[in-house]
């Protein structure tokens, strides 16, 4: 069995990729995907620790995160569709209506 450090390293890599994707990319879909990547990095860390500690708590957290992210995706995609309909673009830098 692979030691937990490998899993954690992978999770960190995934999270950093996701975070950078959120900060750097302008395509709303890509940003979205990057968010999912960060969530899944966290999931991976949970699962790895659950295995390591032989505890189901981490597994259950993962289930919750997956359901929440599923709901989030549903709303997020719906928002993106609506934004696209009004703005003909999903570039997040085009959307600054909340500017103070």
């Amino acid at each position: 069995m692979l030691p937990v450090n490998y899993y954690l390293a992978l999770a960190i890599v995934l999270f950093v990729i996701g975070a950078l994707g959120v900060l750097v990319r302008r395509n709303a879909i890509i940003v979205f995907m990057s968010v999912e990547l960060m969530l899944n990095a966290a999931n991976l860390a949970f699962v790895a620790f659950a295995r390591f500690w032989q505890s189901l708590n981490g597994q259950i957290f993962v289930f919750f995160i997956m359901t929440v992210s599923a709901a989030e995706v549903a709303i997020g995609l719906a928002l993106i569709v609506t934004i696209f309909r009004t703005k003909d673009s999903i570039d997040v830098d085009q959307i600054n209506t909340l500017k103070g």
Partner: protein
Amino acid sequence: MSLSDAMNLGGFFYLVPLVVIFPLVGMLINIFFGGRMGEKGVALVGCLGSGLSFVVSVLLGISLLGHPDGITISYANWNWINSDTLHLRWAFLVDTLSVTMMLVVSGVGTLIHIYAVGYMHNDVRLNNDPGRYRRFFVYFNLFIAEMMVLVSANNYMMLFIGWEGVGLCSYLLISFWYEKGKNGIGNALAGNKAFITNRIGDFGFLIAAFLMYRYLQPLATNGVFTYDFSQVASLASQVPQSIILAITLFLLLGVTGKSAQIPLYVWLPDAMAGPTPVSALIHAATMVTAGVYLVARSHAIYAIAPIAQNWVAIAGGVSALFAATIAVAQFDIKKVLAYSTISQLGYMVAAVGMGAFVAGIFHLVMHAFFKALLFLSAGSVIQGIERGEEQLEHVGNPHKRGKHEAPLDPQDMRNMGGLRHKMKTTFWVYLIAALAISGIIPFAGFWSKDEILAEANHLNPAIFWLLLIAAFLTAFYMGRQIIMVFFGTSRTEAAAHATESKAIVTAPLIILAVLSIIGGALNFPPINSLTNWLGHTFQAVAGGAASGEAAPVPFNFIVAAASTVIAVGALVLAWYLYDRRTREMQRLPLGQRADDPLRPALGPAFTLLENKYWIDELYGYIIIKPYQWLANFLGETFETKIWHDFIHDIVLVGGFHLQTRFLSGAFDLGFIDGITNFLGDGFKELGAQLRKIETGFVRNYALAIFIGVIIVIGYILLRAI
């Protein structure tokens, strides 16, 4: 003394409050019901008020006769002002002096009331206001009441009430026709003059009263000062001479005000603006003698202040001569009598000043008779002239004056003449009064004036000579007046048509004339009944030791003869000048005829006398003008310019404006608003700065969260190390 005590004494002493109450009730009835009672009712009530007071005075006099050794009764003692150190009571003093005064005031007062019934009947019609008839009697009764308070007081404060009360009545009655007179305000001004001049005298009286309290109260038994004459007299010997001198001199100022002596005499001649009965009662017979009464009443304290006594005598003697000289050159029948009154009051004041109290009071009583008679007869003459003028207007005489001529002055003696055939009764009573005042034996004035002269000869030769010259002038100006008014030919149509007054006017004249003839019997030299009568009072205080009354001087034949010769000589001179000389002057061309034979004889001196030495102008120049200037200065410059314009407007209002401007400007707008604006602007600025963060770009937010997370985690991790 209580009622029962007074009853036990026998006599009618307990009636004494009625001398004040009767005229007061008469006044109240006339005030409240006079309007419905008609003229006759008003007159009846007025005369009864005074007459019943006289009856009570007579009863008091009879009661006193029952005590030949003399008695002093202080009746009523009603509390008035009560404190630890001051206890003023309303107490009526009955002794021979006060009863003498009561008899004079109410007796002469009643006669003048009766005279006024007829006189005012004509006067109010002449002045077109019959409604004022009632007012006259209201004032007159009030005057009698106040004068009774004055003479029956047993302490200085109650006397002062009467003193002020008669001053008020004098003022009210001088300006009785207040809308008449020179420029429609002359009478009101005369009233003012009398009142204000009297205020100066009253100021002296008050200062004297304050001094009494200040220096005599600590010496009083139990420290309770009552102002009683007897208490003041007994305490006065215990205080330093200088204090008593100050008190007596300030009282003298009061005396000169009320009794019209130098320097405060100027109001009396102007007081003739009042109706003639007023001149007779208030400004000749009674009120003006209050000063003489005050000195006589204060004889005990004057006795221990010889310097003050001397000043009283000098004021009286100089006034007697001074006023007599002015009287010589007056043409207004009442003005002559007014100056004559000042002169005669001078005799009385000089007498009481020298310590000859009985002589002073004797002359006071006699003067009340003959001077009242003179004034009332003069009133009768004036109305006779007015009737003559009225008659002329009725018949439409061709000599009727044109509209543009000045109205005839019915008081100017130059408009009279030859009245002895028209007004026989008035002429005879006037002649009697004139002889009485001139001091012709056996009329009343001879005895009283001679007593004063005899005392003066004995006590103070300088005053004697002043009074002797004044006696000469008195006889001269009375002779002049008699001849100008009653002898010769009528100088105007009005005088030619003058008619005698009605019986109600002449009856009191006849009674007074009888009194002027036989009055001297009151103190006929060998019997000296008045001296004995008043002696009780003047010796009762201080055990007779310091009574101040000089020993009675025996009848002095040389003085009597001298004064008689002088009086007769003056009358003869007056006859020569105003009868013979005037007739000679009639033959001169019209332009060279003088209105008075003395005018060419005396030249500028006559003008000086005619203008009363310009004393009024002098007072106007040295007192009234500077006073008005001061008042103007205080009013215009000080009050308006300095106080109002500077202190008020600039300092106070300006300062307030400055302060409010500072508070509303610098402080409120600058500081308070500054704080709030600073806060507001600060937050606005802060918000403006902060809003720049709110870019609306989702990636910025994400980065911020990311950094925040790193910081939080970094913090947690670093903390653990």
